[in-house]
């Protein structure tokens, strides 16, 4: 298979660039180690978040049988981001968590609950209608709802400057402030969920033929849907807890990959994990090199790439369906 050597080579190049590129001067012997360490964390965070979001995209596209679905389009990322912000707020204002859980755990838990809430509503809605437009509109409404709730959280967080800054930076998507403890919590979440999604891969293949045929071929459709939703929520929670609200990765990466990796989930999922990681590492490098007074948020870079692609896909899909 030539896909994997290519992906690993790209990862190597992106990884080296991610360590070398940035505003700090590596020639300074006193600061070099610190810079390298910070960029290493940043590289790991971008890779993890990208891997989680890309595989989340592959799985929701399979579950909803819809190439336009992705965690951000369906409101899952916004839900996770809102959950994470509430967790930050609860910790910052109320001091919740100090005694029972370490603060680094609070954000992933909040993200998970937010993601589960968003996907749960969507799955319940899917029982009423499976229409493409209705699905996308529901995702849009959920996104809008969570974004406005996030705005409310942000306004409360402005009471203290530090908390306000943390909450805002979270909603814009960024891997610049990720530390080793956050990585240590996100890594197992994403790794376990990736493996779990891979295990559900064969069942997801059956779902490509629709609910009835999948059931006839022996799939327990309800279980596939709910477990997939849980694992996608874990993936998105892990990704958002280290990368904040980064959109469109789950849309862009699976589409770029399918011509090379095919449609079968057990082939697509590992490739998407690698490619998603590379994509976000590259986006983070772009965020660092674009000249600007302060660094461009990562979510802005992925949005600028993802939004036009989404529109292109929408046009192509509607054309295909119109002539089908």
């Amino acid at each position: 298979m030539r896909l994997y050597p290519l992906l690993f080579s790209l990862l190597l190049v992106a990884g080296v660039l991610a360590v070398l590129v940035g505003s700090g001067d590596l020639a300074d012997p006193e600061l070099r180690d610190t810079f390298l360490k910070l960029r290493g964390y940043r590289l790991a965070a971008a890779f993890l978040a990208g891997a989680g979001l890309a595989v989340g995209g592959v799985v929701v596209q399979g579950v909803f049988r819809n190439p336009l679905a992705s965690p951000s389009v369906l409101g899952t990322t916004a839900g996770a981001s809102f959950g994470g912000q509430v967790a930050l707020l609860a910790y910052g204002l109320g001091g919740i968590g100090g005694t029972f859980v370490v603060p680094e755990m609070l954000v992933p838990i909040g993200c998970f609950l937010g993601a589960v809430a968003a996907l749960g509503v969507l799955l319940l809605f899917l029982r009423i209608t499976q229409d493409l437009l209705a699905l996308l509109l529901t995702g849009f409404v959920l996104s809008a709802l969570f974004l406005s709730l996030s705005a409310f959280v942000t306004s409360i967080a402005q009471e203290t400057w530090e908390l306000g800054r943390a909450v805002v930076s979270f909603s814009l998507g960024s891997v610049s402030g990720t530390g080793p403890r956050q990585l240590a919590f996100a890594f197992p979440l994403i790794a376990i969920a990736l493996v779990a999604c891979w295990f559900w891969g064969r069942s997801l293949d059956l779902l490509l033929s629709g609910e009835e045929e999948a059931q006839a071929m022996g799939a327990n459709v309800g279980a596939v849907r709910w477990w997939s939703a849980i694992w996608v929520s874990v993936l998105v929670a892990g990704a958002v807890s280290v990368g904040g609200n980064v959109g469109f990765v789950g849309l862009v990466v699976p589409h770029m990959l399918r011509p090379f990796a095919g449609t079968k989930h057990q082939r697509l999922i590992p490739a998407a994990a690698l490619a998603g990681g590379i994509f976000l590492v590259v986006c983070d490098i772009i965020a660092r090199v674009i000249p600007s007074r302060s660094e461009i948020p990562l979510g802005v870079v992925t949005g600028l790439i993802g939004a036009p692609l989404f529109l292109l896909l929408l046009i192509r899909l509607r054309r295909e369906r119109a002539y089908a």
Partner: protein
Amino acid sequence: MRNGDGPLGLRAKGVKVTLGGRTVLHDVDLDANPGEVLALLGPNGAGKSTLLKALAGLLPYEGCVEIADVEVASISPRMRAKRISYVPQRSLLRSALSVEEVVALGRYVHGGSFGGISQSDRDAIDHALETAHADSLRDRIFTQLSVGEQQRVLLARALASDAPILLLDEPTAALDVREAMAVLRLIRTLAERQHTLIVVLHDLADARSTTDRALLLKEGRVAKRGSTAEVVSPGPIRDVYGVNLIENARIGFEPAADGTG
């Protein structure tokens, strides 16, 4: 013969299906035996496809549907799919899977979660493709095939599961004469290999040429049962469809004079 559990028949008693508060099937009894093709006939809306889906365990029903004295509703989807394979009229598959990958989906019930294709999976896929005369299509993309070719691939997918009971929903609908003949010949071949086949058919001539026994449905009830020759005969056809059956070199129809049916 590849036929997982060996020949198995299917028996249904008092099957009633209610959809959206409306009873669409009333008290249907049926039995289908290995080596035999049973036709489900009747006008549009008579409940043929609904009955087929209920037998496949895809719709909730009252009454009982049994395979070897085991109630279908009480077994897991996986165990059921090992025994019954349901072939829809058209697949909803829109993804770019190759024919071989589509047929491999039929092996789901035999595989572990690791998803590797074993040698026995490979043999079953080869055998199914060969039996359904779809071998030459193996590397083609399923969605780019003609309707007739897709139907043969769906049959191959069903055969790959090694299920002894096959339920086919209008397998010849939208096929041209040549494609339809190929599918009908395949149905006969499968019966000779001791599969149990229940087939929804619209074309009564096809039913006469291909099936052994028939169940004629009208408004969700059994109007006539028996050998296909008995069922597709002037009396029942006139009662159910309101047309006169003209026995000739080919079968033709004309509206009944009194417009009954």
